């Protein structure tokens, strides 16, 4: 990965990856840190001559793995270091709060499926591959997540709309 590729990746994919991981973990700062860490690890790998076929998916997978560990670590940090001087957190917008709450109510697995699909635009096959599960399971999880999110966010659909059920690609 040369600097041009890295800059392009940061410009084109980085914001959405951070947003996706943040929606899963509920913590933007740690998501940013996890994605950066994943990118650095990818960078190191390419310098060692390894090939990463789909960098955005690789970074997403590693960042989500890292975030699982980070949740635990942050829990410990909160116990050990209750005060951290810094700027007050930015208050999220109303819709962001609604989305965050709706996602937070989902089991993590459904949350990941929904975010990988709707934010990162992964296909069912790609999600199944990333989560090491079957496409049928992904569809099932996506169906449940979609139903919950639609209900929680009061989404309505035009009855004439052809896409009256969850997308399955």
């Amino acid at each position, binding site marked *: 990965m040369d600097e041009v590729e890295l800059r392009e990746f940061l410009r084109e994919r980085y914001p959405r990856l951070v947003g996706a991981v943040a929606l899963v973990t509920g913590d933007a700062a740690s998501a940013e840190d996890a994605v950066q860490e994943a990118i650095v690890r990818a960078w190191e790998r390419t310098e060692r001559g390894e090939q990463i076929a789909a960098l955005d998916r690789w970074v997403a997978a590693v960042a989500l*793995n890292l975030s699982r560990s980070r949740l635990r670590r942050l829990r410990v940090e909160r116990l050990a270091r209750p005060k951290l001087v810094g700027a007050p957190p930015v208050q999220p917008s109303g*819709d962001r709060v609604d989305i965050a709450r709706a996602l937070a109510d989902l089991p993590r*697995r459904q949350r990941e499926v929904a975010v990988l699909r709707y934010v990162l635009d992964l296909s069912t096959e790609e999600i199944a591959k990333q989560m090491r*599960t079957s496409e049928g399971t992904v569809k099932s999880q996506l169906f449940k997540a979609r139903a919950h999110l639609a209900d929680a966010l009061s989404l309505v659909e035009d009855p004439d709309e052809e896409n009256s059920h969850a997308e399955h690609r």
Partner: protein
Amino acid sequence: MPSIDDQLRTRMRDAAPKPTGDGDMVEHLAARKRRRAGVRRAGTVGLVVVVLAGTTGAFVALGRAFRTEPIPGTSPTLSQPPPDLGLGFPICDVMSMPITVAGASGNAYVFTKATDGCPKPGEGHRFVGADLDGNGTVDATAPELTDCFSPVGCEAFAAPDVNGDGTSEIAVSTAGADGYGVWLYAVTTSPAAVEPIIVVDPQGIGNVQTGPLQFAWVDVVGHSGGARCNALPNGTTFTIFGVDKLDPNADARFTDLRIAGVTATVVGASHDRVPIADAPVPRNSLCGAPLYGSASNFPNAAPNPKTVDIGLDAPLCDASSLEADFDGDGKQDTAWVGTFPTNGTCVASDTSAAIAAVDLDGDGLADGSYETLPRCLLCRTYATTDLNADGASELVVLLQASATPEYAIYGASSVTGGDSPGMSPMLVATGNAENGFPDGSQLTFSAAGDEGYSSAVQCEGYPDAPVLVLWRSEHPVEGPGADVTDVHETKLQLVSGSFAVVDARHFTQPTSDPLPFDSLESSGCGVQWFPPE
């Protein structure tokens, strides 16, 4: 009207938090990459965990009225910023620590330049400076700090006098995923200056990189790194160490530096294989100076360690104790955990022999003891519980006070016939090696976990027929196998002084699947295993 899928796509993308980092991200990532490489050089890579010991006050024994007497850690000195410390520009997120400059008192500051508010830790322009005469104004600053990683950022770490010249050096840390990176700065008075200390290696003998002096401060599952001072007849040397803890031995590299002014000259280096229990680990002081900031909770070596004289060869340092009926005679007994002093004083010795001792007759003196607890890192008496339902309590010792606390079980035996009373570790019974518990080894186990692995402790049948249930899962964070998690569940029962595996199962599952245990909430058998309380 768009479909629900399209609505979700739009709203979730709009609601997804945006990165807040500013500046050149490539440069930021490159710095992060350099730091990872630097930390690896110091011997810290692998399955790692930030050793963030809970505040020592947090380690309070559970149950009944038993409670340790925690030694207070060094509190972070976080202060509201004074106007500008004479710098001429607004500052924020100020940390200070006292320093000594040629015998006089001053202060070191780590601060951020405020620009339209205070940047988040790890962002913005952060500096280290020194007030040499204690008059409240900064007399000198070093070039801007780099590699200050979020979410903690760069902090004042310690102000030791590493070369015994009567003037403090200033250590600044950055907290990363697997510990701290520490830089050392020299303070000079004429002219006033704070400058990075530069490593030179004219003989090419060091296990350390030349350039700005930096070292890791970390103690993780497989590695540790730190630094210490050695007072020698011909002057003090500053030794950086990095240890790969490869069972059964540790691979330890040491580099001795002679520091004069802003130059650290490599004067010696060694590479040894030592038992893991004897390998150096960093504590919460650097050359006798307390650690500040988030690192102040780093385990062990409180500045004024408590000692108790319980009739052993020497008073016990850093002692903790719990009371319970350890021999089942209906009377309260006392158990201690602590370390022996080195050359008569309690020091943060890397080779301190930690011991567990017990007083069974109530005279305040130890009747039996067991020396050298394994992998002791802020060892403490943690809890008491009856794990074999025999009416006598076992002692739970916290071996590693960290993000992944590690425990061992000790039991007392009273005087029977010609036997002396003792305090013995509970071992693994023979025939359990296939489950990962070598015959006769001391049972140790952990809770929580970190990158790539998780663990939990549960209990069944307590209090009538307790069975300890140990969970562990592991998977590579990246690379081949990262999408599959190995899960191990082992059930152990304490019978006749040793734990026997009564049931075990191992299976794999997709890493994205929820684990069958909660590593963040471990409790059972009367003990809160995680989080430590």
